[in-house]
């Protein structure tokens, strides 16, 4: 009998570990409030109050970074599976059980790839750009609450902070496009800049719609204002305001798609037009950074949409971080679903969509909501 190959052995050994790890991950998320409470109590008993707070925040940062860094590993595999099943095929099946190790294999491959910086490239900008993009996508997670009190920093201007720091990503893309000294990259960067200007405005208007109804920019407060679940006075925002919030939600989601540069708005990297757009010249880990940022941004957009309109961690039957996780996962799934179904818009059509339709509708929604809010108060 032929002995199983080494890869098979490794895969057989690692697959259960990864699946068990994912299960453990979910359990940990479900029990997050209790774990955090226990850690907080433990730290309070062990350290003086100031140091306890510092340690607490440090642990929170570590946990968030760990979480955010692990998410793309799962999401890339998930996306490939969604794509495959949309296209009547199986997707990754070879590396581990149902391909669960695929993302790790890809990551290892990218790590070992040669990091090429071609001649004529602006080396400093070229190196900074991916970092900025990742910062833009991951920095925003600092204010996203997973549950009551489960966040790094409860900023009272959290929404403003999110709008500001996610724009950093677009600057990174512009930088990458310019520094690459490649015409296709330049086109990608310029398109990204045009896109940024177009979608930021409706996003901001829709955020104002929410802020008007809740009266706070803090994501904690926004979720607290939707604390009654599906029914009741303080129900999810989506079901309030006679359907106006549904419109607002849809606009927010469309703008979110534009922000994550995904189909139908993957104009800056439009594969069939611009080869790979702004990251044409990138390889190895620098390329992987853009990739990570994309998945981080997807999760962020879905998470913020879930918080603003779907009540964050407040569920119809039970509440907690797991509810937030599932809602966000569902919205991420919708993003993937759209990506593998729709064709791509042309750049002028995206601008027309944003300037001619989304902004007026968002503005009208804002005015109506403002009027209704004044009336209510």
């Amino acid at each position, binding site marked *: 009998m032929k002995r199983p190959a080494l890869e098979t052995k490794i895969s057989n050994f690692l697959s259960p570990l990864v699946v068990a790890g994912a299960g453990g991950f979910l359990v940990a998320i479900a029990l997050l409030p209790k774990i955090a409470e226990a850690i907080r109590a433990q730290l309070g008993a062990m350290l003086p109050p100031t140091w306890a707070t510092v340690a607490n925040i440090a642990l929170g940062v570590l946990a968030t970074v760990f979480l955010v860094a692990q998410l793309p590993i799962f999401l890339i595999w998930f996306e490939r599976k969604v*794509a495959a099943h*949309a*296209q*009547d*095929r199986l997707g990754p099946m070879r590396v581990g059980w149902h391909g669960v190790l695929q993302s790790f294999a890809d990551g290892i491959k990218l790590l070992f790839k040669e990091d090429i910086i071609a001649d004529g490239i602006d080396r400093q900008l070229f190196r900074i750009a991916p970092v900025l993009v990742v910062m833009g996508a991951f920095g925003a997670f600092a204010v996203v609450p997973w549950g009551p009190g489960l966040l790094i920093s409860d900023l009272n201007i959290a929404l403003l902070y999110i709008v500001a720091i996610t724009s950093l990503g677009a600057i990174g893309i512009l930088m990458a496009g310019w520094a690459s000294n490649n*015409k*296709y990259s330049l*086109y990608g960067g*310029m398109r990204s800049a045009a896109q940024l200007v177009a979608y930021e405005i409706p996003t901001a208007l829709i955020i104002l719609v929410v802020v008007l109804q809740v009266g706070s920019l803090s994501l904690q407060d926004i979720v607290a204002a939707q604390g009654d679940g599906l029914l009741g006075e303080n129900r999810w925002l989506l079901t309030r305001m006679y359907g106006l919030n549904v419109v607002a939600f849809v606009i927010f989601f469309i703008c979110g798609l534009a922000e994550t540069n995904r*189909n*139908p708005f*993957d104009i800056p990297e*439009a*594969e*069939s*037009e*611009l*080869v790979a757009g702004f990251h044409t010249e990138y390889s190895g880990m620098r390329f992987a950074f853009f990739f990570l940022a994309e998945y981080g941004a997807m999760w962020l957009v879905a998470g913020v949409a879930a918080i603003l309109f779907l009540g964050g961690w407040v569920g119809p039957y039970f509440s907690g971080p797991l509810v937030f996780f599932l809602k966000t996962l569902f919205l991420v799934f919708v993003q993937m679903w759209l990506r*593998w*179904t*729709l*064709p*791509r*818009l*042309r*750049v*002028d*059509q995206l601008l027309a969509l944003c300037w001619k339709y989304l902004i007026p509708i968002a503005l009208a929604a804002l005015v109506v909501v403002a009027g209704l809010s004044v009336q209510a108060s």
Partner: protein
Amino acid sequence: MASQRVYKDLEPDTAYAFKPEDLEDDEMILNMGPQHPSTHGVLRIELKTDGEIVKDARPHLGYLHRNFEKHAENIDYQGVIPFTDRMDYVASMANSLTYAVAVEKLMAIEVGERVKSIRVLVSELQRIASHLLAIGTYGLDIGAFTPFLHCFREREKILDLFEWLCGARLLYNYNWVGGVSHDLPDGWTEKARQFLGEFAPVIEELDDLLSHNKIFTDRTATVGIIPPDLAVAYALSGPNLRGSGIKWDVRKEDPYCGYEKYDFEIPVGQGRYGPIGSCWDRYYVRVEEMRQSVRILHQALDKLPAEGDVHEKVPKRIKPNPGEAYARTETPRGELAFYIVSDGGLIPYRVKGRSPCFVSMSLFHEIARGEMIADIIAIIGSLDIVLGEIDR
């Protein structure tokens, strides 16, 4: 330096290329291809752009030149057939059929009814396979990935049928002078019928998924417009011509292989979502042609004579009398023709191919001017070029 001189000698036609000194302030030359994901092979296009707007476009051909016509002057008549297969490599059956028909015309061979029916069967199956590829990759050009794989799934079934028939999946060497290489295997017709039954709903599915998608029609229905007079002036043919609303199909106008006996329609562009002759019209003509091909295939399977030797008329030695012959057929890409001159010997004196893709490409700069970069991709895709046939 010797190496540098060699490189300079190989530099492509500089007289034809855009010159940097002719550019205005905001203009830029963008070199698209030959290694570009959407130029459908090794086409290179030079674009003079102003931001996203394309001011002018110049295609550079010849990256896949394989000297077909010169080769053909040095091989016997039968030996040319594998070379014709490699012209339009996604519709090999149609190419070799054209060549076989031309040589048969030269030698005044009349093939049997069964051979004619088989040839209709394979060339219509090939048309569906080729259109599936064209439509799938067109979706890919516009940014929709999923229809591509759905199309390839169906194309695969046709390739399986061909493999069963002649052992090859892409380059078949199937249509011989005076016959075909293999008779239909037992059970092949049943399998073909089964495929037709499975395939008809797929076209509807494709319509739902891609053809009438709002983004897709917005992207394609107003760009790359070829007015009917321009199409005729450039001698366009095939779906590209019919997309401009002109009813011309060699299968109807100059029938071969007994196409006059089949009942089918010629779909033309209707200008449903925009001006007539747009990319969308050309795309949709292909979708409609697949429906018509299914119709023809059903009839061909019904009419297929039970008996008949497919090698009956295959000549032992192909040695035509001095003379010349011109034969044309409707391939998936349009009117492919071969002009063959014989000097009475065992090898052709001259073989000239008339390539429909070359004609489509010669029109490209006319419709590319003033469009956006993304539209250039849409236009190339809608012309459905195969570089193997352009460069030969």
